[in-house]
C-alpha cells in the first residue's frame, strides 16, 4: 500500500461457493469512495448485475469500514453492511444495514478495510478472521442456535477479544426482517437473511494490529481532545434534560438525562450520574442513559452502566440488570438486558396501551422481553413498522380474515388484549421460525402485506399514524419534525433513510434563537431552520442544509464516524456560543490518512458516494424517471389531522407546490436534472463517476 494512514490497506474477499479467500488493495480500488457504504456501493456497481435477487448466490454482502475505524477518533465504531435488500418492495434494491460495537476496529486491527462475501456455502459455515489467518469453518453445530450461544461458542474458541457478528434463527430461515448482531446488542437491520442465504452463521474477527496515523501525532491528539470537548450526549444533544447548575438551558426532550440523584442503581455500589459539567470530559459517559430516557425513571434502579462502541464515550447502549425477569417470564430470559433506542422499545411498540401507562412496570417488562427475544433470534423492527403494521391488522380484524381459524386460535390473544408482555413469547419466535401465515408475512416486512395479502399500499400512505413512507419502509425523522428537509431526505433511499445528521442539530435542545444563530454560520441564513410547530416556506438555505445532511450521512457511513453523534456542529459550551466544528470530519481524515482535505473537498467525496447510490438505484430500477417513480411522498405528508393549513401554528402539513420547489432546489444543488431527478452526465463526470455516465449513456439512463 501507499503511505496513507487510516486504511488497513486490504479488502478481504471470501467466496463461499468455492472456498477461495483472497485480498485486494483498498486504495487502488476504493480510495475514491473511502470505505463503509462507499465500498459497498462500488462493489455492487462493479460486480452485481441489475436484477440480482437478495438471496441469489450472485448477490454480495459487503462489510465496509472506513479510514477512521479503529483510530482514537470519537465514535468510530460503525460498520456498513451493503447488499441488495430483501425488504425493499416491490423490487429489491441497494441498501445498507449499520451496526456499531467492536467489529469495525477488530477488522481494522486484523488488517482489513472490508469483507466482500460472495457465493453460497454448501453447508452452514462461519468465518474466522484472526489477523492474516482467515478460515471458513463448519457451523453445523451453531445452526439453529441463538445469537448469544453462537457468540459464546465462538468467543470460547477465539478468545475474549474476538468480536462475533452473527445471525439468529430468523436469518437462517431467510426471514427478510432479520439482523446481524455483534457485542450483544449492536444490530444491523434487514441484512441477516442475506447472510443466512449464504449459509453463513457468523463472522468472528480478532486483530492484534493497529491503525497508523499518518499525520502529526500531537496535532491528532489535539483534534481528538477538541472533538471530545464539543460532544454532548447521545445524538449530540447539548443541553441537559433538567436544569443543572452549570447549564443556561435545559430541555425535557433530550437524552442528556444525568442529574444529581439519578443513579445507576444496579451498579455496585450505585453511581450517581451527577451534574455532568460539560468541561469534565471524564463524565461524558454518565450523561446518557437511554433506558431511563425511553422507559422512564423505573429504569434507573436497574441500570448497571452504559455500554457502547469502540472509542465512543457516549455509551448509548444501557446495560440493565432486572433480577425478577427469569422467574416472572421464564422462557430462558436472562436478568441482564442491554439495548438502545428503537430496539429498546421493540416490545412496548406492539401494544396500544398499558393499564399502568407507557412508563409503568408492564411497558418496561414488555421492553425487556422484546429486547431479549429479538437480539437472540435476530429479528429486525424496521424502525417500528412491524409493530405499527401488527397493531393495524389486529385491531381491524385483518389477521382473523387472512389466516386460518386453527392458526388464529393458536395465539394467546387474551394475553395480547391485556397487554401482557408474555404474549411476545408467543408471537416473536414464530416470526423467526416462519411458523404460520401471520408470522411469515410479518417477517417478510410491510411489502408482503401488500404483495401477499393484497392490502392496499394507498391505505398505509394515507395514515400518518402508520408512519409508512414508501417501498416497504417507514419515514425516519421526516417532515413530522424537519419539514421540507425531512420530507426530501426520506425520498432518497430504498429503505428508511437512517439519517441523523439533521437530527443531531434540530433536536439538540438549544432554544430556536441559538439554533438559528448557528444555522446562519452553517447554511447561510437563520431561515435554514424552523422552530418546531412553526415551519416556513421553502428557501435556498433549507435546500443547502438538506444537501449537507445527506452528504454528511454518506461521509460518516463511509469514514466510520457514527451518524448518531456526528456532525458536531453545536456543542454544550456557552463560551463558544454553543458552536461545534463543521470541519471535524476533514480534520480527522486529513491527519489520520495524511491526505489533506478541506471540508468542501471531503464533502465532494460524500457527494460522490451519494451519487453512486443514486446511480445504483437508477440502474437497478431501469429508469431515469426518479422524480416520478422513486422520490415520492406519502399522502399523509399533505394532510393535517385537525385540518390546519400549511404554515400555520402546530401543523406539519406540507404544501405540494412548496415541496416541489424544495425538490427543484435540492436537485439543482446536486447537479441533478430537475425533470427526472437523475444526475446529469456532467455531474457524474465532476464526481469522478464517469464510468457511470458511460454505462448510462449506452442504456439511455442519462437525463
Amino acid at each position, binding site marked *: 500500500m501507499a503511505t496513507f494512514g487510516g486504511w488497513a490497506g486490504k479488502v478481504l474477499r471470501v467466496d463461499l461457493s468455492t472456498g477461495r479467500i483472497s485480498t485486494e488493495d483498498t486504495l487502488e480500488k476504493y480510495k475514491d469512495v473511502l470505505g463503509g457504504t462507499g465500498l459497498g456501493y462500488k462493489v455492487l456497481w462493479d460486480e452485481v448485475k441489475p436484477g440480482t435477487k437478495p438471496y441469489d448466490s450472485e448477490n454480495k454482502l459487503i462489510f465496509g469500514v472506513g479510514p477512521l475505524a479503529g483510530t482514537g477518533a470519537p465514535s468510530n465504531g460503525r460498520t456498513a453492511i451493503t447488499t441488495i435488500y430483501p425488504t425493499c418492495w416491490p423490487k429489491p434494491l441497494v441498501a445498507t444495514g449499520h451496526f456499531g460495537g467492536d467489529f469495525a476496529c477488530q477488522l481494522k486491527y486484523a488488517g482489513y478495510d472490508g469483507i466482500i462475501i460472495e457465493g453460497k456455502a454448501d453447508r452452514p459455515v462461519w468465518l474466522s478472521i484472526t489477523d492474516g489467518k482467515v478460515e471458513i469453518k463448519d457451523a453445523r453445530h451453531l445452526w439453529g442456535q441463538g445469537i448469544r450461544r453462537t457468540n459464546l461458542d465462538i468467543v470460547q474458541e477465539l478468545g475474549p477479544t474476538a468480536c462475533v457478528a452473527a445471525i439468529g434463527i430468523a436469518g437462517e430461515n431467510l426471514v427478510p426482517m432479520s439482523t446481524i448482531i455483534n457485542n450483544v446488542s449492536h444490530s444491523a437491520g434487514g441484512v441477516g437473511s442475506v447472510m443466512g442465504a449464504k449459509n453463513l452463521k457468523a463472522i468472528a474477527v480478532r486483530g492484534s494490529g493497529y491503525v497508523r496515523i499518518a499525520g502529526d501525532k500531537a496535532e491528532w491528539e489535539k483534534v481528538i481532545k477538541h472533538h471530545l470537548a464539543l460532544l454532548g450526549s447521545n445524538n449530540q444533544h447539548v443541553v441537559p434534560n*433538567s436544569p443543572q447548575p452549570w447549564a443556561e438551558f435545559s430541555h425535557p426532550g433530550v437524552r442528556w438525562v444525568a442529574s444529581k*440523584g439519578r443513579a445507576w442503581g444496579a451498579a455496585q455500589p450505585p453511581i450517581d450520574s451527577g451534574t455532568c459539567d460539560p468541561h469534565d470530559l471524564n463524565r461524558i459517559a454518565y450523561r446518557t442513559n437511554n433506558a431511563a430516557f425511553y422507559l422512564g425513571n423505573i429504569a434507573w434502579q436497574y441500570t448497571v452502566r452504559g455500554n457502547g462502541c469502540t472509542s465512543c464515550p457516549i455509551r448509548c447502549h444501557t446495560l440493565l440488570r432486572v433480577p425478577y425477569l427469569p422467574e416472572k417470564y421464564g422462557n430462558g430470559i436472562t436478568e441482564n438486558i442491554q439495548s438502545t433506542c428503537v430496539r429498546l422499545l421493540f416490545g412496548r411498540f406492539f401494544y396500544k396501551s398499558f393499564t399502568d401507562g*407507557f412508563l409503568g412496570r408492564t411497558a418496561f417488562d414488555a421492553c425487556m422481553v422484546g429486547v431479549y427475544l429479538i437480539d437472540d433470534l435476530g429479528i429486525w423492527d424496521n424502525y417500528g413498522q412491524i409493530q405499527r403494521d401488527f397493531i393495524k391488522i389486529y385491531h381491524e380484524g385483518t389477521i382473523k380474515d387472512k389466516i386460518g381459524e386453527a392458526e388464529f386460535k393458536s395465539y394467546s390473544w387474551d394475553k395480547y388484549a391485556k397487554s401482557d408482555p408474555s404474549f411476545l413469547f408467543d408471537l416473536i419466535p414464530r416470526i423467526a421460525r416462519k411458523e404460520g401465515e401471520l408470522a411469515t408475512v410479518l417477517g417478510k416486512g410491510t411489502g408482503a402485506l401488500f404483495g401477499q395479502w393484497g392490502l392496499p399500499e394507498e391505505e398505509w400512505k394515507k395514515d400518518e399514524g402508520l408512519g409508512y413512507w414508501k417501498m416497504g419502509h417507514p419515514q425516519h425523522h421526516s417532515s413530522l419534525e424537519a419539514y421540507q428537509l425531512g420530507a426530501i431526505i426520506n425520498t432518497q433511499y430504498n429503505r428508511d433513510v437512517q439519517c441523523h445528521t439533521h437530527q443531531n442539530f434540530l433536536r439538540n435542545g438549544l432554544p*430556536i434563537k441559538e439554533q438559528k444563530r448557528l444555522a446562519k454560520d452553517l447554511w447561510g441564513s437563520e431561515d435554514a431552520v424552523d422552530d*418546531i410547530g412553526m415551519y416556513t416556506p421553502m428557501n435556498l438555505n433549507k435546500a443547502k442544509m438538506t444537501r449537507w445532511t445527506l452528504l454528511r450521512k454518506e461521509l460518516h457511513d463511509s469514514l466510520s464516524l457514527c451518524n448518531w453523534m456526528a456532525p458536531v456542529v453545536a456543542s454544550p459550551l456557552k463560551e463558544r456560543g454553543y458552536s461545534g466544528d463543521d470541519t471535524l470530519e476533514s480534520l480527522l481524515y486529513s491527519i489520520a490518512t495524511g491526505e489533506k482535505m478541506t471540508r468542501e473537498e471531503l464533502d465532494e467525496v460524500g457527494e460522490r458516494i451519494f451519487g453512486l447510490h443514486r446511480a445504483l438505484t437508477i440502474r437497478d430500477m431501469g429508469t431515469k424517471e426518479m422524480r416520478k417513480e422513486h422520490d415520492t411522498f406519502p399522502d399523509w405528508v399533505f394532510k393535517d389531522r385537525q385540518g390546519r393549513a400549511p404554515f400555520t401554528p402546530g401543523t406539519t402539513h406540507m404544501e405540494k407546490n412548496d415541496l416541489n420547489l424544495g425538490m427543484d432546489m435540492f436537485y439543482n444543488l446536486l447537479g441533478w436534472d430537475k425533470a427526472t431527478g437523475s444526475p446529469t452526465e456532467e455531474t457524474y463526470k465532476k464526481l469522478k463517476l464517469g464510468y457511470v455516465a458511460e454505462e448510462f449513456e449506452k442504456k439511455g439512463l442519462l437525463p
Partner: protein
Amino acid sequence: MTKHQQGGASILTEEEKVSRSIAAMIRDKSREGLLVSMQGIWEESINQAPGADKGVVPEIDLQALLIVRMKEEDDLTAIRNQEGQPRYYSSRFMSENYAKILIRKEGDPLVLIAETVRESSSLASRPVPVAIFLASPFHLSQVEISACLQQMREDRRFQDIRQTATSIGTYFLYSALHLDPDRASMLSEWLDVGQHQNP
C-alpha cells in the same frame, strides 16, 4: 494593600485569606447547585477563623471583603431575592438562569411555577411537563403542585398559564402570552409521544 512583601514572597493578610476562602466557598456551593447568603458566609467564616475552636468571634466586615473580592473576580455574582436580600454564586459554575430558579424557590411557589413556564414558552417555545416541578432543583411535592395549579387558576396574575394534556395523559403547562394553544398542544404531544415514537 492586602499583601505584605517579606523576603520577596507575598504573605497574605488575614482579610485576604478570608476573602479568598469566601470566594472558594461560593464556587464550591455553585458547583453543588446552591446559592450562598451572607448568613451562610458568616457561619462558614466563623467556623474557619483562627480561634474558632475556642469560641473567638473574628472582627471582620465580611460583606465589605466580599464586595472587594467581587470587583477583582468577575465570576462572583450577586442576585437578589424578592425581599432584596443578596445571594451569591459563581457564574463559572452556575448559570444565571439556574440562579433565578433558586431565587424563585425562596419565594412564592406560584411565581416559581409561572415564571419557569413563561420563560420556557417565550425563550424556547416549549411547554413544560408538570412533572419537572417534582424533580431537582424544584423539589415540590405532587400535593404542592396540585394546590399551586388550583390557586393559579383562580388568581388573575396567572391567567396566562394554561394546561394541556397529551394523548397518553401527561399534563404540560404553557403561557398563552407566548404560545398559541394549537401549537402548545402539538409541541406537548411531540415531546411526550411523538419523539418517543420517532427515536
